[in-house]
């Protein structure tokens, strides 16, 4: 019984983990290229969730259509924010970019709050569900996971097969060297920041396909924390590491939820969140460079 429940939840965790992974790639991309931690990460996910919600409620469009829209919104926000603030802060102390991205998140949250109120909302995308014996997976969850894997794959191909992607990787390796070889480093910074925010906003759409409820302007906080755990699992600077970190995290999260639910007198949902925080501290303590040493 317990075993069946656990394995069912682990399958859910695997599917959710793929989405988590994709939701962290933007964070790792920005850190890898610019060495900037996007503390407003969760807020960007929230913007994606509202994009999906708005298109669904207002135009009756399926969240799949929201994916490109979210990408465009995110990349635009990223470019604006890069050129208005981040670019001037790259040479300053770390404190400056941390506070700037933090404020960026607050701006997003408060803007959305003014536009949509702080009410908790959701939408209902009625798709068939599949009973696979130990658990029930809906098509929208599977689409979210497949979409995430697809995005991760596209990013991989872009980084490895195109000149633009390789130029960006060269900046990760050594920005002075890249500059000497004629790479426009400033533009690469702008592009990766914008791409990172774009990916994150897009992941918000995919996350609502998995969990279409509980959307509110402040929903991002827990995702920021989760994304940090995942990014640190994957070595912080590597988008692929982040993807695999996400899968691991999805498994751990759902597994620990099942186990906490067995302890009487404990609220498993809150404990799972506490657990992810403990995990973050432990990983940072024992191996800040990441547990998974992905390429």
């Amino acid at each position: 019984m317990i075993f069946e429940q656990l394995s069912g939840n682990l399958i859910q965790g695997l599917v959710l983990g793929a989405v988590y992974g994709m939701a962290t790639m933007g964070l790792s991309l920005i850190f890898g290229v610019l060495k900037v931690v996007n503390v407003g990460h969760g807020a960007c996910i929230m913007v994606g969730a509202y994009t999906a919600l708005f298109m669904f409620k207002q135009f009756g469009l399926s969240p799949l259509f929201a994916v490109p829209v979210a990408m465009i919104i995110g990349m635009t926000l990223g470019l604006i924010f890069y050129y208005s603030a981040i670019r001037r802060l790259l040479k300053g102390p770390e404190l400056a970019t941390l506070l700037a991205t933090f404020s960026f998140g607050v701006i997003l949250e408060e803007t959305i709050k003014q536009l949509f109120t702080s009410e908790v909302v959701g939408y209902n995308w009625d798709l068939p569900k599949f009973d696979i014996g130990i658990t029930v997976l809906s098509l929208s969850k599977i689409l979210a996971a497949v979409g995430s894997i697809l995005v991760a794959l596209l990013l991989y191909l872009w980084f490895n097969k195109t000149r633009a992607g390789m130029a960006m990787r060269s900046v990760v390796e050594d920005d002075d060297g890249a500059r000497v070889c004629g790479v426009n480093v400033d533009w690469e910074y702008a592009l990766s920041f914008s791409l990172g925010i774009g990916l994150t906003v897009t992941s918000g759409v995919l996350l609502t396909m998995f969990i279409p409820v509980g959307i509110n302007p402040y929903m991002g906080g827990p995702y920021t924390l989760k994304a940090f755990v995942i990014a640190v699992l994957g070595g912080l600077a590597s988008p692929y590491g982040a993807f695999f970190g996400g899968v691991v995290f999805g498994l751990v999260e759902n597994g620990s939820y099942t186990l906490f639910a067995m302890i009487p007198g404990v609220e498993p949902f809150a404990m799972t969140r506490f657990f992810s925080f403990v995990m973050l501290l432990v990983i940072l303590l024992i191996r800040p460079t990441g547990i998974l040493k992905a390429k």
Partner: protein
Amino acid sequence: MKNTEKYLPVIPVLVAYAALLAYGVLIPGKWQIASQLAFYCALGQAFNLFMGMTGYVDFGYVAFLGVGSYGMALPIYHLSDKGLGLWLIVIGIFLAAVFSFILSLAVGAVALRLRGAYFAIATIGVNEGFRFLIEGARIWNGSEGLLFFLHMRTAFGKQTATAISNYWADGMVFAVAIVAAIMTLIYMRNKVGYALTALREDEDAAKVMGINVTKYKITAFITSAVLAGILGATAWSLKYSYVYPSDVFEIHYTVEAIINVLLGGAGTLLGPLVGGIIYGVSKYFLAIILPGFQLLIFAPVIIAIIVLFPEGTVGMLKKKVIGTPLEKYII
């Protein structure tokens, strides 16, 4: 520098707090505003002690205020009928200090081994993590929180309880602000401050020079956290007679602490005071003119400050007064 000269900058700080106190006491109906301003100043002073001096950002700072408010709430909630009278407040402040000390020691021991970005990442979860531990494991009444309005009345009597909520709690906020400012000055003028300045400029160089950076970072971190704990105990628990985990672990207070410090100038003594007053007054008027828009206005202000004048108001003033007799007083 002679010993008395070292501590001259405390004069403008004390004068400013005395003026604020006088404004609240002497002008009828202004006490609440004055004490609210004192809260922002105290929050900034305590936060600045760590962030300003080390250059590290602690995004989980409000957690210390949160555990501090529990430190005060618990004895009042459980021991109100033991006839301890005002000793309860002493116990509460002591417990608040102990709770925030333990939490900061635990967090600091892990997070302070990490640098810059990694430190910020480690602290961002402290607040949420601790809140979910309280809610999840149902510690201290879990998400229902502690309500102790009636307990306050049982313990202190109706009149005293009202006086505590309306006046004494605010008075203690002033005290925390002043103590935090004095601690900052003492640190600045002693080995801790010099070590932290070296660390802020170049941590590796400081290490090579033989400075035990971890020790000084932890000292500043714990001092700042304990002050925050006592602030939470007085400004929240004593004043409002309730503690809800979702209220006391509200991340907006961390934002406010950051704004107060940045507006005034990180790492300066007068900065948090000036920043707290600028922030408090503008928030007060914004709440009247544009209710609900305060954060939407302040967040871009933070970015503007970081980009355009990272030294803050006092930082700029400090540069202006170099070479004048005021130099000794403003740091």
